[in-house]
């Protein structure tokens, strides 16, 4: 059994959850799907004094688990599970990259329980959602203990390893993502993992927009797993406006990724050098797939990367 005892609270509403957070301060932790926090507690790596369980919030009265859409965006409740993100028809239709990402997380049992909000708040540098959410310019809605809401852009949300912009008494309630199914736009998430369902050694999210003549309007690439926070590859974003996204251009983008990813993380699964080389390969794969989905003609899939 875990070493350190803790008090358990099961608030029935988001408001009740944030007032408990305010009351107990930094010794309390919010428990979402528990797929990271409970193992960390079992290992003795986390020992909160109070657990505030969000899974008991009443789904009908005060939901944190939903997917809805308006003309521009999808709204995803923070307690929506990875399985729900993977299967949601709305997400599959309007933001395929997120369903694709959810399907790569861990395994069925973890996806049945783990939540998108819990995952982004845990902010593991190798977490799968981080890169795609930054690449598609997601926004995060939070409320504080005075029930005041604010919106944080994905670019500003991830502050450091396991650290987000959320304040001590704030709760993430919703993730908003712009609809992606526009003409001549394609996006993709691909990752390099050491075992089926493993964390991303390198995860690459690419969004490609093409002009009517087939040339590139914009390409953005964001990487997970290489830095403490998701890395947006600025040089690629600047480099391809008006150009054709052919194999040579994609090769060039891979080189830009390699140059921009200096001294990435190093751990038991991958050395820094290896991660840097994989950043090149997976950047190319992500752009190639995104460009093909956007309808580019000259993107042939090559097996060797």
């Amino acid at each position, binding site marked *: 059994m875990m070493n350190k*005892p803790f008090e358990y609270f099961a608030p029935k509403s988001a408001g009740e959850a944030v007032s408990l957070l305010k009351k107990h301060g930094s010794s309390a932790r919010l428990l979402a799907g*528990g*797929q990271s926090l409970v*193992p960390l507690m*079992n*290992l003795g790596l986390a020992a909160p004094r109070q657990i505030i369980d969000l899974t008991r919030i009443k789904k009908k009265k005060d939901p944190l688990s939903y997917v809805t859409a308006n003309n521009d965006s999808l709204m995803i409740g923070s307690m929506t599970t990875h399985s729900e993100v993977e299967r949601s028809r709305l997400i599959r239709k309007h933001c395929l990259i997120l369903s694709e990402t959810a399907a790569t997380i861990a395994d069925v*049992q*973890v996806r*049945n329980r783990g939540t998108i909000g819990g995952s982004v708040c845990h902010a593991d540098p190798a977490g799968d959602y981080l890169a795609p959410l930054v690449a598609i310019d997601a926004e995060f809605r939070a409320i504080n203990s005075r029930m005041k809401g604010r919106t944080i852009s994905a670019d500003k949300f991830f502050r450091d390893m396991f650290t987000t912009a959320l304040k001590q008494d704030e709760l993430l309630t919703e993730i908003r993502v712009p609809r992606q199914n526009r003409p001549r736009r394609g996006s993709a998430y691909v990752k390099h993992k050491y075992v089926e*369902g493993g964390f991303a050694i390198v995860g690459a999210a690419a969004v490609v927009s093409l002009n009517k003549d087939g040339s590139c309007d914009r390409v953005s690439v964001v990487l997970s797993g290489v830095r403490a926070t998701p890395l947006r590859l600025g040089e690629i974003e600047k480099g391809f406006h008006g150009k054709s996204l052919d194999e040579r251009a994609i090769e060039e983008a891979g080189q830009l990724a390699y140059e921009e990813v200096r001294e990435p993380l190093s751990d038991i699964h991958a050395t820094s050098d290896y991660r840097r080389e994989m950043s090149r390969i997976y950047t190319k794969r992500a752009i190639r797939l995104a460009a093909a989905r956007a309808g580019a003609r000259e993107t042939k899939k090559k097996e060797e990367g």
Partner: protein
Amino acid sequence: MPRVTVKLRVNHEKKEVEVDTRTLLVDLLRDEFMLTGTHVGCLTGNCGACTVIMDDLSVKSCTVLAAQANEADIMTIEGLSPRQDGGGGGAKLHPIQEAFIKHHGLQCGFCTPGMILSAFQLLRRNSKPTEDEIRVAIAGNLCRCTGYQNIIKAIGAASEEMRSRAGKQSLS
């Protein structure tokens, strides 16, 4: 030590217990209810030996606090073959269990309860899975004996058997 009352249904039986808040669902099942078919492997959500069905979804019960199972409906491997009175642990095996025996889908048996419940989750969502879909479905269950091939065969055979039984039922 802080304690919490948990009311739940396990294999169709109503239960109510008071436990230490640190109790995991897997410990509740094994130590309080003596349902030792649910195994403890890693305690980190990797191995899948503790897989149970919670409110119709497969979960790893070492990553769920017992307190979170309050008001939940849990099915363990013991509840897979229901008795006439609706309880678990009936004498007749479930077709997935029969297929694991017939196709040698186990050796030491440690991973088997979790493996079978992952197969159960799959076949409930998808009565005719492809081999790839079976592989994805058991990605969260580690087996160190079989090399998985016979497990995959067993799940494929179980899906055929279950479809054929369902077909016969709908004809009669």
